[in-house]
């Protein structure tokens, strides 16, 4: 067909199209140009950006269009595979609903049911307006009036916020792994992202669907270990995918994981089953032996059985096996039910102790610190002037949780309380980067808080509910249009870096958050955005410098043509740890010095079943989705378009609920109505609802109006509750709700 067309076109117009007959067609020249590119096909290496695992990708690109995504064979993280989300990645890139151009609001009334009256504006106008607002609020109300809801990356964005003296930067990690981050800093000297399941002989999982709801590297690891004969034990209220391959599964009572972990420590310490060599050489056990032995004496398996429904004999046996049949490992990570109860800080400490007693910290078969290529940040490459002192009030109240401040996290769960009740009117300006209202417990409360902010900027790839409340919307690139260097963390016994490169040019007028940071920085804090020779910092030059200094090549262009770098080196276990004492700390004196428990103590979850609310409410992220950001992907939408209330058949029979029947789930916070899905996989005192659904905006043509928001029945919190409950790691408490269920 192509030759036919060429033929007639040649006949019609010689070289291309014939001369213009109409003045109206003069505009053609504005929209078309002589063809300069020829059809081509290439395979490019890049890194996924859907979750932090960032698995390596081979992207087949033909004629400037992504045709196929597959795993990168040499990548440690994905091990040549992609998960369902990763394989469907082009669906994010080519979503017709994408935000395409900067826009500004023309309707001053804000609300999910208000038409913002957006109009398209230039990037210049958007950036100038945002800079003016920040400048004005900062001068009149101080840096505490600025709220940034964003992950702490990229580093130029961090530089921008630090240069402004931003006090209130908040991210979602309290609903993820924050308590583990806080605790392990003091117990083993940092959070290890690596779990060496491949070499484990005993894998113990608390509230964790490791095989389907975690990183591909970890799922591969558990499966490989299982094939080699490792034992897998799971405590979880739901018989999930991991339970299907586990050797033992216990339907534990929600929130009682801590009791079982404490009882296991009791058994191991009481019977001296711990790894003597490791414990004596690398921990502070002997220094605090009496305190430790006395402390755990009370937590017997019989005591734990009464709280957890796990038989005492099973707890005792599993503890013995764990201590003697290793290498043994207990991972703790996000997406685990256990990481999200009010008592998760104590649980993180208990789990850390179990790993220490097993003697597998940074050892084969245990949790280990990633061996990475050192990639210098912007501050190392272009040292900044001194940053201003961070002064002001924390709107989320985390100034009452100093250890949370040390790891520079925040608290989603207490943010609305701070904005509405503690410090009303304090936040004048908010910048949201890729977070949505759905990510918060009790999203309506957060909506109300956001509605009262004078000026809000939302940067995202999709028009989320949050965008509806924005004064300016900025269109973001997807990971398939971005540049970065991504070191391996989840599977990194030897260092490896994978490139992230734009496999296609950025569509429409989308930009990266790093570019925005630099452009805003030039306008607001220019002294922080110049190189030592006085030029503006450029993303491209910064990447080139990183590549050079990390020893990956002479330029980013060179490294992107290679795509992956692996440095062969032996795995040498650590003998000193980055804690204050240099040892693994079972007893944490720094906790005691702050008035916290130096050893983990039993605390119940925040809310217990009652006559009014007799059931535990659990929420989960389905394997096929990532939080609340993938529901508009056509493939993932087709696989799982909506959510339902998962209820055990036993409970459903008792309540007279049939499959598919609408039910109302009500907590002290609110109610949701959705169809019931009956299952044999759940404890009869629980109901489970998948997170990520219930987008209100019709802007998302597939996800909009589908399902309900799980968070509508989850209470938001006041920081005082955390302090009173000993939740000094700031765990987000999104699993603590109790509810009533009634058929409709």
């Amino acid at each position: 067909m192509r030759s036919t067309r060429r033929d007639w076109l040649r006949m019609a117009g010689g070289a291309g199209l014939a001369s213009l007959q109409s003045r109206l067609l003069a505009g053609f020249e504005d929209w078309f140009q002589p063809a300069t590119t020829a059809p081509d096909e290439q395979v490019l290496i890049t890194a996924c950006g859907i979750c932090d695992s960032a698995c390596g990708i081979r992207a087949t690109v033909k004629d400037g269009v992504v045709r196929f995504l597959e795993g990168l064979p040499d990548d440690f993280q994905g091990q040549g595979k992609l998960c369902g989300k990763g394989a469907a990645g082009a669906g994010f890139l080519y979503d017709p609903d994408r935000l395409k151009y900067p826009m500004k609001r023309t309707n001053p009334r804000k609300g999910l049911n208000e038409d913002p009256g957006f109009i398209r504006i230039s990037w210049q106008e958007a950036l100038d307006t945002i800079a003016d607002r920040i400048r004005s609020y900062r001068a009149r109300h101080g840096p505490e009036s600025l709220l940034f809801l964003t992950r702490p990356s990229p580093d130029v964005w961090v530089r921008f916020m630090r240069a402004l003296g931003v006090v209130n930067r908040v991210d979602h990690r309290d609903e993820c792994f924050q308590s583990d981050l806080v605790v392990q800093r003091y117990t083993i000297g940092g959070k290890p992202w690596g779990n060496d399941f491949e070499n484990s002989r005993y894998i113990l999982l608390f509230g964790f669907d490791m095989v389907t709801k975690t990183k591909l590297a970890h799922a591969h690891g558990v499966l490989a270990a299982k094939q080699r004969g490792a034992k897998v034990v799971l405590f979880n209220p739901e018989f999930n995918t991991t339970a299907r391959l586990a050797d033992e599964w216990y339907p534990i009572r929600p929130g009682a994981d801590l009791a079982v972990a404490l009882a296991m420590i009791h058994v191991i310490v009481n019977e001296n089953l711990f790894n003597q060599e490791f414990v004596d050489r690398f921990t502070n056990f002997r220094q605090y032996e009496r305190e430790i032995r006395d402390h755990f004496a009370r937590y017997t398996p019989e005591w734990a059985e009464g709280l957890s429904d796990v038989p005492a004999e099973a707890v005792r046996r599993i503890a013995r096996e764990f201590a003697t049949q290793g290498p043994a490992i207990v991972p703790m990570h996000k997406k685990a039910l256990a990481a999200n109860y009010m008592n998760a800080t104590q649980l993180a400490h208990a789990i850390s102790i179990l790993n220490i007693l097993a003697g597998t910290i940074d050892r084969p078969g245990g949790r280990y610190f990633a061996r990475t290529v050192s990639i210098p940040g912007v501050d190392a490459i272009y040292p900044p002037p001194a940053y201003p002192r961070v002064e002001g009030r924390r709107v989320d109240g985390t100034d009452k949780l100093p250890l949370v401040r040390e790891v520079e996290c925040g608290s989603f769960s207490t943010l609305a309380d701070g904005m509405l009740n503690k410090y009303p009117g304090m936040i004048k300006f908010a910048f949201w980067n890729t977070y949505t209202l759905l990510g918060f417990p009790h999203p309506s409360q957060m909506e109300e808080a956001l509605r009262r902010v004078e000026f809000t900027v939302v940067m995202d790839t999709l028009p989320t509910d949050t965008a509806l409340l924005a004064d300016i919307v900025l269109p973001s690139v997807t990971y398939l249009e971005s540049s970065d260097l991504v070191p391996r963390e989840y599977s990194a016994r030897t260092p490896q870096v994978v490139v992230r490169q734009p496999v296609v040019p950025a569509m429409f007028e989308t930009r990266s958050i790093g570019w925005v940071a630099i452009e805003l920085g030039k306008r607001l804090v220019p002294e922080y955005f110049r190189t030592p020779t006085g030029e503006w910092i450029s993303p491209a030059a910064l990447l080139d410098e990183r590549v050079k200094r990390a020893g990956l090549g002479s330029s980013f262009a060179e490294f992107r043509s290679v795509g992956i770098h692996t440095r062969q080196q032996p795995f040498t276990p650590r003998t000193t740890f980055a804690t204050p004492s240099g040892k693994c700390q079972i007893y944490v004196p720094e906790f005691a010095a702050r008035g916290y428990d130096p050893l983990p103590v039993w605390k119940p979850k925040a809310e217990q079943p009652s006559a009014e609310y007799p059931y535990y409410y659990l929420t989960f992220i389905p394997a096929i989705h990532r939080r609340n950001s993938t529901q508009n992907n056509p493939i993932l939408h087709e696989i799982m378009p909506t959510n339902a209330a998962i209820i055990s058949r036993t409970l459903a029979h008792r309540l007279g609920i049939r499959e598919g029947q609408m039910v109302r789930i009500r907590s002290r916070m609110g109610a949701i109505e959705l169809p019931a899905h009956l299952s044999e996989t759940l404890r009869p005192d629980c109901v489970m609802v998948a997170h990520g659904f219930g987008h209100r905006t019709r802007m998302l043509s597939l996800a909009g109006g589908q399902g309900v928001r799980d968070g509508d029945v989850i209470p938001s919190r006041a920081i005082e509750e955390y302090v009173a409950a000993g939740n000094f790691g700031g765990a987000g408490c999104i699993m603590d709700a109790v509810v009533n269920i009634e058929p409709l």
Partner: protein
Amino acid sequence: MPLPAAPWYAFAGTALLTTDSQQLAGLLEQLRGEIVEDEAAEARIRRLADALPSEALALEKEYTRLFLNPTGSPCALWQSAYSEMSQLMGPAHDSALEWYRAAGVEPARSNEPADHAGLLLMFFARLLDSGADPNELSRFRREHLVWLEKLADCVERHTALPFYRELMALLRWLVSVEEI
């Protein structure tokens, strides 16, 4: 029925690529000067000109609302979005790019998918203007213009702005002519 003249397609394409009321009003004036078809054409131009909003931002707001998402059902401007998968850069994009390249051109803005309704109309106007073979015109129409009925359906369902309603009426007329 004879095929409408190329300037009609050029105008429709431009109106789907820009929200500059003044520019569109100017193009309608040019159209009036160039088109001497009949009274119906004259009436069509008058209706479009009369429907152009006087408020400076009205067109911009409605264009953003209809085509660039925020609030309301989106009416995508890209042919691929109307395929089964409802994704950008689908087979329609590839085909459009092939047509353009065969003519020795390509979209000037590399970040704009080639199957944008405005680009397709503009390109068809150019083909028509350059006296292309009727069979090829017919084939382009089948492959890349017929779907505009769906766009018109969507816009008519979701807009009350007279200009876009008139524009969709124009679009339906331009697409409805089968004999080339």
